[in-house]
């Protein structure tokens, strides 16, 4: 047992490299699939375009002399498609990290009441926003964003006072969720039928609300949060050993949970504020990615992001195909696309980290 076999070193290294190459290949294939889905999303819609037209329109830029194609691609479809990609990335990563810090396979970005808080904020803006001198397209996302951060602040405060363990975070999150659900229901009860309809439509979650401003804002939030999360990749991986072992390796688990929770809140708030609540992506993308590449966050995080984007853009394509001439809110379709993907992967590979 004490003798070190000198032949094992190179074998171990080549085995490791082979495993990493396979994981990187899976990630690259997912990028290709996402690129294909992006193109498909651009050509699908009430006025169909050919792939050639779409590519040509994209390459010629917004100042394309063929005015119609340029307008469809650059002013209408591209911001919606890109928003689908960015929201998918945000919800995928937020779901993965929520599952990691709560040590719970059922966690998603909305487990701790963020969607209820965003819905309350949006409902508040829809009901009373007319009295304020701010445009509705800006006020509603701002209110949803602010309410989500308030809910995050409440849970964060509790975690700071009592320790950021999964039980405290979950308990605090569920209490906050019930609070905002109740407030949201109160607003819906008091709203006129027209306002109620607007609130319910917002809650469905739809990429149609996207524009270049929302793309820029969410893109900016991702640019800030993803590198910070990536810096903690190994530390987040170590949480999967359980708190006792992770702490014994020198990890400050409470601090890691608190800052990750803050990034998750920021990502979720920015995504939800512009497109409403789009469920299932944050639950299914991490499981699907985990089943393909395991739990090393250096690979798992990028693949989850790509998987989330592919699922949401795929759902966007489906939402445009199943109702010709109309677009069903994508939040309704995500589960229809996501469930077969999850079932297939679970049947083939087991239930990822929680098998």
């Amino acid at each position, binding site marked *: *047992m*004490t*003798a*070190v*076999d000198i032949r*094992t*070193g190179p*074998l*171990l*290294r080549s*085995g*490791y490299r082979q*495993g990493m190459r396979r994981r990187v290949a899976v990630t690259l294939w997912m990028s290709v699939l996402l690129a294909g889905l992006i193109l498909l999303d651009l050509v699908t819609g009430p006025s169909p375009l050919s792939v050639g037209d779409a590519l040509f329109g994209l390459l010629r830029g917004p100042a394309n002399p063929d005015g119609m194609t340029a307008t469809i691609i650059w002013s209408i479809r591209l911001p919606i498609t890109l928003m689908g990609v960015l929201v998918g990335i945000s919800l995928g990563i937020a779901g993965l990290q929520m599952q990691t810090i709560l040590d719970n396979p059922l966690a998603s970005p909305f487990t701790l009441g963020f969607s209820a808080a965003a819905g309350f904020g949006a409902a508040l803006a829809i009901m009373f926003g007319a009295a304020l001198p701010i445009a509705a397209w800006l006020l509603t996302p701002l209110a949803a964003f602010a309410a989500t951060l308030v809910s995050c602040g409440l849970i964060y405060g509790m975690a700071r006072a009592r320790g950021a363990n999964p039980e405290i975070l979950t308990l605090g999150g569920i209490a906050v969720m019930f609070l905002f659900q109740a407030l949201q229901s109160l607003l819906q009860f008091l709203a006129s039928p027209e306002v109620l309809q607007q609130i319910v439509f917002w809650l469905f979650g739809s990429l149609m609300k996207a524009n270049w401003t929302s793309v820029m804002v969410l893109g900016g939030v991702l640019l800030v949060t993803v590198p910070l999360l*990536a810096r903690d*990749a*190994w*530390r987040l*991986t*170590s949480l*999967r*050993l*359980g708190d*006792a*072992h992770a*702490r*014994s*390796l*020198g*990890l400050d688990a409470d601090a890691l949970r608190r800052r990750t929770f803050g990034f998750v809140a920021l990502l979720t708030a920015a995504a939800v504020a512009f497109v409403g609540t789009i469920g299932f992506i944050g639950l299914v993308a991490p499981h699907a990615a*985990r089943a393909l590449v*395991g*739990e*090393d966050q*250096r690979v798992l995080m990028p693949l989850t992001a790509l998987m989330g984007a592919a699922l949401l853009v795929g759902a966007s394509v489906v939402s445009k195909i199943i109702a010709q001439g109309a677009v069903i809110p994508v939040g309704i379709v995500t589960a229809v696309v996501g469930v077969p993907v999850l079932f297939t992967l679970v049947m083939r590979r*087991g239930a*990822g*980290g*929680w*098998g």
Partner: protein
Amino acid sequence: MTDATLTLQDVSVARGGKQVVDRVCAALPGGAVTAICGPNGAGKSTLIGAIAGVAVHHGAIRWDGRNLDRTDVAFMPQCVAIRSTLTVLEVVLLGRLDRLGWTLREADLAAAGDALAALGLTHLAERRINTLSGGQQQLVLLAQRLMRKPRILLLDEPTSALDLNRQLLVFDMLASYARENQALVLVALHDLSLAARYASMLLLLRQGTLMGSGHPAEVLRAETIRAVYDVEAEVLHSSGGHPVIAPLHASTECPLRFGGERPPVYHAEM
């Protein structure tokens, strides 16, 4: 390099208003295995946790006359089943959590390979840890700590899930690791005979208080075992001269009894 010493000076840990470890003083030599023994709740894990820096303590803990540098220490808490699907190699690599970067260094891969080989686990490197038995998981976690090449290795019940053969192999390996690296291997253990065979020093704790310390042959006496464990025991000696503890019966009435019948007392045939 001369062997350093870990000195504990009036080390106390309080929890919920109760002294879980009460003013423990000891000097633990490097280059050897030291065992901490005692009944359940005696404070073994807490004392190890205090040295590891995961339990808040009072008193001084010094290594080689200086304050402890945490990078010298590796600590393995009591094992609980790991549900993760990380591979064995990835789990061992996490032993260097403090210095792992986005790309792995050759030195870290090599150190992980050495630690796996030292415990005979190389063939399991690509296996997911949740598919291993409890004993195999325990060995992987031990390899993870060894990968750090610590000067002070703190192990809480490191062989609790291992069969007899692997218990002996692991302790043989730990003893040689301590010798070759002038390291202190401090182990919390329930098996007094195993402690007596491998430890050059034994600490006996009861309710947080140090009841005895020194060479196992000096500490493990029938009257000490009675005072610490409430157990009547006979101290025999193996052919190698190590004390072997043969428990005879509990010296107090059993509080764990069902119904009114007193449980039978078994006497060892000598």
